[in-house]
């Protein structure tokens, strides 16, 4: 049971980080389907820097920086050029796929090395807490960090002035502008913060899950994060619950797989996507998206 909970949390964590990032972006009125590409970029940069410096910490920092840098490309087109968000997000995904593949083969022509791993937080006592101790604090620090981040995002959106502005921009950008909120600045900021979260989510994959990098290793997690935001009804706690649901399902499926359940492997791999589709089919329509989601804002008199 303990092991299952731990696996669920570990599998849920990158989804949660990515979903929190997407949540922040979407609450400011922008859909970033390039989050998959941002994660992938974060994963690669984290991997490359961690391998060359042998420091996983630097790796995480590099992952975040690279993701934010690519996020700014997205922001420039989407916010400052008012280009379509879906199309630009698609381009970001393509760029990330191509650039990471290209860089992987250019920088590591001799084969892909193993990455150093981010060790567990060594805070005495925490890991021995009953029930949740090992699951939360036993393995990777990403897990407790993601839960803390969830609370921070929830608090930020509900209890800070900046969070109120952020939401106002996502709900009715025109009204926010009329109130003197700089819509473009808020959205660019939101994209940057969202990209940073995506970068953490990406960095976690080579540094805390598979210990290496492979092409396209995010494998659609960014897109599942998009679905989690909808399923989580655009709030942080909801996203955490939804991410945990996905993590638990995947963990359970691995468990059953290990017990020799006769589900062919490729079908098992398809399960998260099918599950996401099913969840969307049930959850969409009941949740209310930010009103100005996906709409570029241009100031003008009608």
């Amino acid at each position, binding site marked *: 049971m303990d092991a299952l909970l731990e696996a669920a949390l570990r599998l849920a964590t990158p989804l949660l980080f990515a979903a929190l990032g997407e949540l922040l972006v979407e609450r400011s009125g922008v859909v970033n389907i390039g989050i998959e590409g941002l994660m992938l970029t974060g994963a690669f940069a984290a991997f490359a820097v961690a391998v060359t410096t042998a420091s996983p910490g630097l790796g995480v920092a590099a992952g975040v920086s690279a993701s934010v840098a690519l996020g700014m490309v997205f922001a420039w087109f989407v916010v400052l050029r008012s280009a379509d968000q879906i199309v630009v997000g698609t381009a970001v995904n393509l760029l990330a796929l191509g650039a990471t593949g290209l860089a992987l083969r250019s920088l590591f022509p001799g084969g892909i090395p193993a990455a150093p791993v981010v060790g567990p937080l060594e805070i005495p006592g925490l890991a021995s807490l009953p029930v949740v101790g090992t699951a939360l604090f036993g393995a990777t620090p990403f897990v407790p960090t993601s839960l803390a981040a969830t609370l921070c995002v929830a608090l930020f959106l509900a209890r800070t002035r900046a969070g109120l502005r952020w939401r106002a921009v996502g709900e009715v950008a025109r009204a926010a502008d009329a109130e003197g909120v700089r819509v473009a600045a808020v959205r660019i900021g939101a994209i940057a913060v969202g990209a940073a979260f995506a970068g953490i989510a990406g960095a976690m994959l080579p540094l805390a899950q598979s210990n290496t990098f492979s092409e396209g290793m995010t494998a*659609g997690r960014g897109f599942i994060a998009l679905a989690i935001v909808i399923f989580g009804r655009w709030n942080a706690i909801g996203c955490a619950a939804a991410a945990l649901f996905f993590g638990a399902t995947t963990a359970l499926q691995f468990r059953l797989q290990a017990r020799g359940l006769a589900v062919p492997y490729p079908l098992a791999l398809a399960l998260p996507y099918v599950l996401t*589709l099913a969840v969307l089919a049930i959850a969409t329509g009941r949740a209310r998206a930010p009103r100005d989601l996906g709409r570029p804002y241009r100031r003008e008199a009608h």
Partner: protein
Amino acid sequence: MKERLRVLASPIAAALASIGIAVGVLLALGHAPLGALEALVRGAGGSPAAWTGTLQKSTPLLLTGLAVALSFRCGVWNIGAEGQLYAGALAATFVATRWLPADGGAWLVAPVLVAGALGGAGFGALAGWLRAARGVSEVISTILLNFVAIQLVAYAIQGPLQEAPRAYPQSDPLPHGAMLPALDRLHLGVPLALIAALVVAFLIDRTAVGFRLRAVGHAPEAARFAGLSPERLGTLALALAGGLAGLAGAVELAGMTGRLYEGLSPGPGYTAIAVALLARLAPLAVIPSALFFGALANGALAMQREAAIPSVATQVVQGIVILLSVGFALGRLSLARERVPSEGEA
């Protein structure tokens, strides 16, 4: 006239600029770009064989590019050309290796192509149903269905459709009669794709259905008040697009590979989006656009062979082409889109 020149010039500028940026990236990664470029150009069109390869590579891109152009014109964000291509290839393989006689004549081609188109159309329609009946954004559903399709193919070629010897994860070869006739390695799929472009252009501009699809694409709510159903027409657009992409899968199968295996797709489904956007969503312009990306893909293979530059570099070019196509006034596309306000939102 000046306007026409501008319309023509901006995609060319976008294509050239993106190659320029990619060269910069190569430089930054420590490659020698000039030799690479030369290899690319030679590999893409330096010899008759190179030309044949370029045309072969362009064909699926033309069909999937048409799929994307058609759906985007109808206001549907189909990011799922890749999945629809696989679904088509899967259906075509099933029909060819399980239903059709192994010793049939050349007529076997027809059911294989039809099966491909129907398979892709069904897959597209699934996203359409999720959108119309359950309100699921087609952006997310088509992306997720790409992953589902890839795993379905993987499952099929390790399971029910695996070759009789069960040695490799691939299907049995298609019956000889089901293969597209070819002239000097240029298979019938090439002219077929060109005809498809004409048909799509005609459909969009000249038919009543195309008229309705365009109306919904421009303004779904206005079209609803004019008596058109954005849901139904959106599903139709997705099914038509899926049919084109599925046809691409069948053509690739029956024209090139002869068997189904993983990695049949000419690239991630996004490539088709780059093709369509560079063509500014005009079906006939998809022809040169697909040719450009086909040449790029073909040349990139030579580049990888001769200059040791990974061919994934082409994806960087594709990404930049998309950005330049939608991001600059020079080649700016206005993708009509209007969000359908949900009930009780006021």
